[in-house]
């Protein structure tokens, strides 16, 4: 297995850097990214290149076979998530290096937690068995809770505590489900479960536990209450990382397990319920986002809403024709990636606007379009994608989901996509409206450092561009999946 060094590196390197960053002085901690980011970028692209050239494969860690060793899955979905993580987390790290200079005590703990979080996420994307998914979930979850607490204010600690309880409860439910499956089928590997799983009571109870745990971690309505205080109250780069990437990990696990168990085991009824909950999230989250006065809370509730779109995957892929299912797969992943890019951009640019006006209130943004056009422009580009307006990744994803909903004859999901788009337009334009209002004639706002604006702009532009060039990424994502490569 010489030559595939990049696969283990993807989680070993962040882990090593996390430990290393605890050994060096706080001043040196941010500088480790100049080693870590290029190496991780090279490893990610190497994995992609191998996937494209050699096709999807199972990678046996250390050459040991499954029951003894650990299997890693290197297919299109995993590689796509890895690339997304590398891009978003790298830009957030660059942002954080500048942003956290104003928060010296938080800064020293941010870096070890970032690497730990990264290792946990890459572990999840690559894991081939449901127990290692659990390990990754815990590592990532604990790092995320630590990051929420970084601000060390009473509110931040309360939010972190709430998040911790939700995360632990979620993992516990998931672990119970895993234990049930292992006890029944004697295997933890996805391939093994795919062979063995049968529709019986035990499987359904296990599935229910797994779903419940993962919904709690993904913050799907009505289990979302922990998310807005945690994401809206954290330091800006932390909010971006959590909203863009962390909640995607638990969704990713649910998606994988759902597809592994196959249509015989996964009931259509459950799929519809998940879709209905998703619809509830779209409406409730959008409505709540529109009602917020605090800029980052608005963005956090927008995440609650956007998660809902992803859950339309289950009704659209279960018991529908192959074409509708493929479109649902494409559309959901497009939505997922576009949301990761756009939401990170939205949080970062919201952070810049807050820095500029020195207040978190939306009403204090009056007239900011004149003085800080660049921060607002990134906010706008990201907003276009979240509203699902063309040209953007959000639009392409929505198009694919609409197409799938019509093909599978489930017209009621059209209404969700229709009203959801209008609701998100309402809350995005709420911010714009304020910023276009003519206010003070003299520029009293602070200029954020250029790095902060540029990182936000890159992410926002990526959210737009991926919509126009969706063909290739969607092709890669399909490699090794049940939806074929053609």
């Amino acid at each position, binding site marked *: 297995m010489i030559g595939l060094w990049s696969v283990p590196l993807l989680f070993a390197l962040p882990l090593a850097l996390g430990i290393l960053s605890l050994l060096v002085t706080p001043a040196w901690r941010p500088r480790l990214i100049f080693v870590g980011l290029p190496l991780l970028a090279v490893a990610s692209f190497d994995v992609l290149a191998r996937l494209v050239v050699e096709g999807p494969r199972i990678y046996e860690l250390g050459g040991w076979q499954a029951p003894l060793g650990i299997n890693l899955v290197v297919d299109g979905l995993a590689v796509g998530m890895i690339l997304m993580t590398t891009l978003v987390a790298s830009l957030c790290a660059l942002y954080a290096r500048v942003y956290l200079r104003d928060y010296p005590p938080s800064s020293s703990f941010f870096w070890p937690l970032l690497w730990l979080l990264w290792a946990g996420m890459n572990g999840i994307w690559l894991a081939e068995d449901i127990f290692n998914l659990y390990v990754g979930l815990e590592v990532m979850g604990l790092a995320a809770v630590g990051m929420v607490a970084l601000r060390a204010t009473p509110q931040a600690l309360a939010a972190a505590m709430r998040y911790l309880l939700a995360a632990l409860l979620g993992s516990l439910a998931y672990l119970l489900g895993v234990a049930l499956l292992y006890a029944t089928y004697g295997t933890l590997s996805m391939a093994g479960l795919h062979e063995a799983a049968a529709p019986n009571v035990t499987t359904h109870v296990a599935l229910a536990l797994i779903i419940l745990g993962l919904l709690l971690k993904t913050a799907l309505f009505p289990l979302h209450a922990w998310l807005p205080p945690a994401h809206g109250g954290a330091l800006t780069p932390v909010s971006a990382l959590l909203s863009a990437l962390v909640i995607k990990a638990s969704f990713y696990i649910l998606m994988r397990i759902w597809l592994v168990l196959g249509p015989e085991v996964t009931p259509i009824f459950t799929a519809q319920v998940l879709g209905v909950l998703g619809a509830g999230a779209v409406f409730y989250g959008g409505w709540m986002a529109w009602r917020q006065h605090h800029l980052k809370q608005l963005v956090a509730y927008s995440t609650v809403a956007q998660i809902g779109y992803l859950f339309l995957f289950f009704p659209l892929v279960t018991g529908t024709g192959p074409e509708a299912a493929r479109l649902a797969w494409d559309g959901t992943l497009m939505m997922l990636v576009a949301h990761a890019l756009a939401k990170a951009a939205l949080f970062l640019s919201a952070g810049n606007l807050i820095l500029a006006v020195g207040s978190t209130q939306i009403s204090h943004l009056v007239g900011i379009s004149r003085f800080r056009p660049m921060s607002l422009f990134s906010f706008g580009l990201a907003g276009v994608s979240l509203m699902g307006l063309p040209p953007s990744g959000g639009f392409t994803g929505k198009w694919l989901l609409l197409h799938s909903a*019509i093909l599978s004859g489930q017209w009621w999901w059209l209404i969700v996509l229709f009203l959801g788009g209008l609701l998100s337009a309402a809350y995005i334009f709420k911010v714009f409206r304020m910023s*276009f209002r003519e206010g003070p004639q003299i520029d009293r706002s602070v200029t954020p450092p250029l790095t902060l604006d540029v990182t936000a702009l890159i992410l926002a532009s990526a959210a737009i561009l991926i919509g126009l060039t969706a*063909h290739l990424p969607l092709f890669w994502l399909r490699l090794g999946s049940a939806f074929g490569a053609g």
Partner: protein
Amino acid sequence: MTWNALILFGVLATSLVASAVIFLLAESRHTTRSVFNLAAAVLKLLLVGWIVWGVYQNIDYEFRFTIIEGVDFILRADALGMMFVGLSSLLWLFTTIYAIGYLEKAPNRSRFFGFFSLCVASTVGIALAGNLFTFLLFYELLTLSTYPLVVHRGTRESLRAGQVYLYYTLGGGALLLFGVVALHVLVGDTEFVPGGVLSGLDPSLHPLLIGIFLMMIIGLGVKAALFPLHAWLPMAMVAPAPVSALLHAVAVVKAGAFGIARLVYDVYGIEFAFSLGLLGPLAVAASITIIYGSLRALAQDDLKKRLAFSTVSQVSYIILGISLFGPVGTLGGLVHLLHQGLMKITLFFCAGNYAETLGVHKISELDGAGQRMPATSVAFTLGAFGMIGIPPMAGFISKWYLGIGALEAGMNWVLGVLILSSLLNAAYFLPILYRIWFRRRERLWCEGKVLGRFETSGWLLLPTLATAAFALIAGVLAGMPFSPLYWADLIVSREYLP
């Protein structure tokens, strides 16, 4: 990628690049910005001229790449599209000149010109779109790029107008999206083909097709200000004059009317649309809008408001022409797309000149303006005569062909609508002309600012006179090659004899 594809993409890229550069330029770099903006507008016009000549000779210009499986991004130059591109790039040049003069010393110019260019880029994209997907993409981009222009002044009133504008256009856009996706499911990537792509479908799908048509007409009718979807347009009058000119003559309402033309001719096909019985109701809707807009215009004292309701009415002539089954009616509708643009932009420029130079916004205050500003007033008079349809102005040509087209299509009642609406046009334009030319001003003009050595700033006056001249020439020389009528004739011959 061939040269032709690159040239076609260049038409779009000139305004896209202009927009990006303008956004990046510092607010204080006024000269650089203006020079760059005008250079881009001229370059675009040259490229358009080149392609117009090529399309005339039946050369294919196409630019495409795959976005997702089964959906392509397509730009293609055909006769209908080039007509709209020609109009928008010509008027972009003049509106830019006008806006530079109009916004002199105003704040937020970088933002304004950036979105202005983006708005024109979307219009060109709409015109060149080779399939419904690409059309939709630019149609929504147009909404997004015009919002900052509508709310540009940042007052409570303009923000309110912007909000109403969004309610209408985003709602309409969502309906259009459904229609486009539904057609995509039925026939795959819906490329624009003369004669349409739907006539081969199973007759059991016909009720569904009628439903989709209705949904898409609502989506497009919002921008075309079709009654009762027009309320945003008069409200959007709070925007600066160049924006109104752009909204009314070049970009937004035209995008709606153009979209309806595409839908009827190149998606459904005029014969198939006729056989589904879609054209009659469309003609009725257009007729109601024509009369309603004129009646509302009569009651306005605010000059820009009156012009806005006049637009509501005039744009529906285009839709009326589209809904008349037969080559002559089509000809009248399409040629009005150009004529209305030239005439209406002149009128809005004039309204802006009066407001900027004399501080006059109300019709009742225009007494004697002809003496103070003769050149502007001549331009206004030409535009108004055109709108009424007095020969030899361009508006006459449109109405003439619409009338004959109506008779040919066997819809004689349309003739009544045309006559009534012309009378109403006269009723709301002639009193303005009377005040301008024949009434004397009682008090002195409150002239706060001297705007150059002409009656007003040259930046404001030149575009006004130029567009007025175009509106006159389009009528007088309608029989010459490459006149609007000539080009519309070319489109009709390619549309009806595919």
